[in-house]
């Protein structure tokens, strides 16, 4: 499958990149590692006039230690650099696990953190070639008027399969979004929209430049279930965090991924274990509350009914893992 015709523009600095984004707006697509962008371009899911390469922008590729004990990570850092980074592993083990869980070593050698955070949503219909799709009516993503995943829906129900945002949400990470005039700080928990088409709050002229992680001493865990351990997108994944020690967990956060158009923060199950501690009974009570928070379930890499089962299994495993830490 050939790439659709486009102009390939390489920029050397952040300011040049933001200027080019301002000039080209929605006609441009930023390419960092390219592994997700090229996949989508091959499937003709988007055909930008300009592919804007930021791979030579050194200022986006640094991991900076903050005085408060946190880290500020450039969005252009390749996943392999984070996997191998001693401070990332030491301070944010669950985040390091999530980075290590993304695709294969080959992909991590070139894919970036910003790319995974902005990963395009996927569904069983758009995961096919243009020729295959032409046999079926076009959907919202391919300029049609319906969603094949949930036929009666007025929204695109493609799933957000990114792994790294899940621990970042539990850790309270903040994204820096910048355009040619200004920058804004957006907590990553507020970055995603429940719409497969327009799945983040990023404006066409904006770039995710940095991820800021506050210091965190709590217990954290990341678990992923996929068809194979390596290469595959998650069927379901979870990041969890708890304050306290042992069964005592005064503050808990649980975030599920690869289930819906955006990561799902489980409120009721977290409140249950906060109130009752991480006993087996409380964990089972929390597990019983999971399904109600998932919304409509759809199939991608696993059947919807199995995803509901996986969500519960992951919550149980994550809470038990936290208890043992």
């Amino acid at each position, binding site marked *: 499958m050939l*790439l659709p015709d486009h102009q390939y523009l390489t920029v050397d600095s952040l300011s040049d990149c933001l200027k080019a984004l301002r000039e080209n707006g929605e006609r441009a697509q930023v390419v960092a590692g*390219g592994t997700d962008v090229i*996949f989508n371009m*091959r499937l003709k899911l988007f055909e930008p006039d300009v592919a804007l390469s930021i791979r030579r922008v050194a200022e986006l590729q640094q991991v900076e230690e903050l005085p408060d004990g946190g880290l500020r990570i450039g969005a252009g850092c390749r996943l392999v650099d984070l996997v191998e980074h001693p401070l990332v592993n030491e301070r944010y083990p669950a985040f390091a696990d999530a980075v290590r869980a993304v695709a294969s070593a*080959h992909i991590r050698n070139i894919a970036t953190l910003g790319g995974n955070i902005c990963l395009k949503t996927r569904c069983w219909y758009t995961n096919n070639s243009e020729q295959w799709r032409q046999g079926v009516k076009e959907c919202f993503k391919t300029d049609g008027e319906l969603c094949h995943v949930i036929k009666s829906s007025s929204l695109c129900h493609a799933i957000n399969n990114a792994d790294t945002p899940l621990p970042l949400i539990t850790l309270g990470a903040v994204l820096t979004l910048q355009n040619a005039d200004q920058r804004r700080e957006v907590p990553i928990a507020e970055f995603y929209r429940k719409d497969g088409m327009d799945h983040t709050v990023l404006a066409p002229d904006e770039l995710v430049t940095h991820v800021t992680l506050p210091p965190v001493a709590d217990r954290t865990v990341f678990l992923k279930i996929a068809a194979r351990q*390596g290469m595959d997108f998650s069927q379901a994944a979870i990041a969890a965090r708890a304050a306290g020690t042992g069964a005592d967990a005064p503050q808990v956060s649980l975030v599920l991924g690869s289930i819906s158009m955006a990561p799902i923060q489980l409120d009721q199950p977290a409140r249950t274990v906060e109130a009752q501690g991480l006993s087996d009974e409380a964990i089972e009570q929390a597990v019983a509350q999971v399904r109600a928070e998932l919304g409509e379930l759809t199939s991608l890499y696993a059947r919807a009914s199995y995803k509901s089962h996986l969500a519960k299994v992951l919550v149980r495993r994550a809470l038990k893992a936290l208890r043992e830490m």
Partner: protein
Amino acid sequence: MAKHMISLTINGDTYDLVVSDTQTLLDVIRGDIGLKGTKRGCTTGACGVCTINDSKGRAILSCMTHVLEWDCESITTIEGLESNGELDAIQRAFIEYGAVQCGSCTPGVIMSAKALLNAHPQPTEEQINEAMSGVLCRCTGHVKVKEAIRNAHRIREASSHAATD
């Protein structure tokens, strides 16, 4: 479609090339240079048969990257592993352990294994699994591939002893 001049070093030979915006590194390796060892597979990043090594000896999927990213870079393909008519230790290990059947995935599998051995000459089981997770071999079931990788360092040492004897 605009054309650009780039300079790319493949297996130690530097090529000055005229390439277009939409060409991937794989398109140029196979089409423009004519090195057909690197294969085109799924072109979506799932099979790994297009794997090459970058200047740091890391495994890269050449079908998932624009060639314009590789201006002034140096890469190694499967053709670049042998030197002076002698195969690399990992290639000899693949032969000795029968880690090849139909051969379609072999260049990608060997370049992935080479990248692993560059970083860890005697890899652990976990490191082998992680490094080889990005390539698919439908014939061998990966068992013999892993045997070859585990024993590549022994073959390398044996040949370096033979050279000094």
